[in-house]
């Protein structure tokens, strides 16, 4: 780096050549401890990170505990209904104050020496006089530590460990409107369905990120899924048109967020009916689409009903509105290992029969036992394993569709928007 200007073109990790239409990423970016340290410092400690959905803590005093961006957090609602995110660590000597996955409690008590806290974080223990000065907690040293920033958009709550970060809405940029396309699928709100898929992948977190909105791999990696659709009577409507520039696209949503949007054969509970669901469901799904058109006009209504969207919100939130809706977040435990949490989101008032089809749909493709995700995991782990060859074969190619003015869903434009932002944020950590 000596003597080179830091900035576009000078990055050691991302090489973009507009004239040659090439975009390359160094494989070392997936394997080096030093990169992960920079990512923690410049990305995970500074960006808005998804913590949970409002429907997971619907009532006063509800709480859940969760690992978020390398921290242990409590995400909860206090007695007044206000939402908080606390670092799950006792101000005394550091034990976790909440050790169950979720619950409903007026407060938390540390089991180690018994310090107790209201669910708004305030210290709530009477300790015999003479042990601590009377003004011991005047500065709040015995209260739970709150995450510096906590904001939400349409029920999706995010934390930020950087007190000086811009607001969530500004950060989300064009991704906010895509979240709206999910949130608007119900007039009474959306909810996380019971059951969390918590799994791991022996691969760098950015491999899962790329994979989550990669239209290019669908036909090859997921050949058996499309075989399954072909073998299942009434499972398909329109053709899969990932490569059709007029009907599908890959989009830069700003600030490193990106999306692919495309028509696909599978059924969508909101709202693309397939024969396999039967005639009763047909009336319901069609009514749903009519209602969306009534509420949001024909263009947005049909878009919500018929088009699939795989979206990555920088750096680690995936909201895929496909044969079901999956909300998925992941965090690197080491450069070569990540932990995933995946949920499914559905309209609160959904009829039992439609809910059943939605979950059936989810599992046929998604998750550790689906007909597709295990093959993604295999691909990601295969890449990670092969990156040991990076000294002799050091670069990934992410150039597909660079020559097109409107890239399709099987191009790689959306990944390039991620990598540019990743590079910009890491570059900020390199001394000029």
């Amino acid at each position: 780096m000596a003597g080179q200007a830091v900035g576009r073109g000078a990055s050691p990790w991302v090489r973009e050549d507009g004239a040659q239409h090439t975009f390359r990423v160094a494989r070392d970016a997936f394997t080096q401890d030093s990169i992960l340290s920079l990512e923690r410092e410049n990305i995970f400690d500074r960006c808005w990170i998804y913590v949970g959905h409002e429907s997971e803590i619907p009532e006063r005093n509800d709480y859940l505990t969760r690992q978020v961006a390398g921290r242990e957090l409590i995400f909860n609602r206090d007695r007044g209904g206000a939402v908080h995110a606390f670092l799950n660590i006792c101000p005394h000597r550091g034990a976790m104050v909440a050790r169950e996955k979720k619950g409903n409690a007026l407060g938390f008590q540390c089991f180690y020496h018994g310090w107790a806290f209201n669910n708004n974080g305030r210290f709530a223990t009477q300790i015999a006089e003479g042990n601590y000065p009377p003004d011991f907690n005047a500065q709040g040293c015995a209260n739970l530590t709150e995450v510096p920033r906590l904001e939400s958009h349409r029920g999706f709550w995010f934390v930020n460990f950087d007190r000086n970060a811009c607001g969530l809405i500004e950060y989300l940029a064009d991704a906010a409107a895509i979240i709206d396309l999910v949130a608007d699928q119900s007039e009474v709100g959306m909810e996380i369905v019971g059951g969390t898929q918590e799994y791991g992948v022996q691969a760098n977190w950015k491999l899962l990120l790329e994979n989550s909105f990669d239209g290019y791999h669908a036909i090859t990696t997921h050949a058996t899924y499309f075989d399954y659709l072909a073998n299942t009577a009434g499972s398909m409507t329109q053709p899969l048109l990932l490569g059709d520039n007029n009907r599908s696209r890959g989009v830069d949503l700003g600030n490193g967020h990106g999306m692919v949007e495309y028509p696909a054969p599978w059924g969508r509970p909101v709202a693309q009916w397939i024969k396999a669901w039967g005639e009763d469901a047909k009336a319901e799904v069609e009514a749903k689409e009519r209602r969306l058109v009534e509420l949001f006009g024909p263009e947005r209504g049909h878009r919500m009903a018929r088009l699939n969207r795989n979206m990555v919100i920088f750096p680690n939130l995936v909201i895929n509105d496909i044969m079901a809706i999956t909300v998925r977040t992941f965090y690197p435990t080491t450069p070569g290992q990540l932990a995933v949490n995946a949920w499914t989101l559905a309209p609160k008032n959904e009829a039992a029969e439609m809910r059943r089809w939605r979950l059936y749909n989810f599992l046929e493709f998604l998750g550790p036992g689906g007909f597709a995700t295990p093959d993604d995991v295999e691909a990601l782990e295969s890449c990670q394993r092969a990156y040991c060859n990076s000294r002799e074969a050091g670069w990934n190619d992410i150039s597909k569709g660079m020559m097109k003015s409107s890239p399709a869903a099987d191009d790689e434009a959306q990944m390039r928007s991620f990598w540019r932002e990743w590079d910009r944020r890491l570059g900020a950590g390199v001394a000029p």
Partner: protein
Amino acid sequence: MSAAITRAACEDLLYEEAALLDEWRLDEWLALFVEGATYEVPTAGAADNVQSTDTLFYIADDWHRLCQRVERLKKNTAHSEFPRSDGLRLVSNVRLLGEDGRGMLVGSAFVTYRSKNDRTECFMGHHRHHLVLVEGRLRIAAKRSLLDMNSLRAQGRVSIIL
């Protein structure tokens, strides 16, 4: 009919099932099931009585999808299992838990090892099989594999049949 179902006969069937899966004889494994059978794997740590109609599972196969799962696993485009993993299933603690509408409920404990790419993962839990006698032969009407684990962080996937 239930009088004819003994624990020893159930154990024989469960051991046979484990061996067929270990040996990747998937068509013969599927033939142990009656038509219309189901196969389910709820998420790690789920309660025994969760329902796939309102809760997210890993696997909730009806008969069609179970048959398709076997078809898929036989293909060399099922990348997670091609090249195939090696595996070993231990089944123990077999108990007859009583009869209900779907047949004799048989409980067992299992440990399943899966080895691939120089990594070995372990799945542990308990099975709940519903077994029925069809023309004198014991068959599986439903199988549910409950993972007595916290998460799938180490395993990453359930691409084999447990």
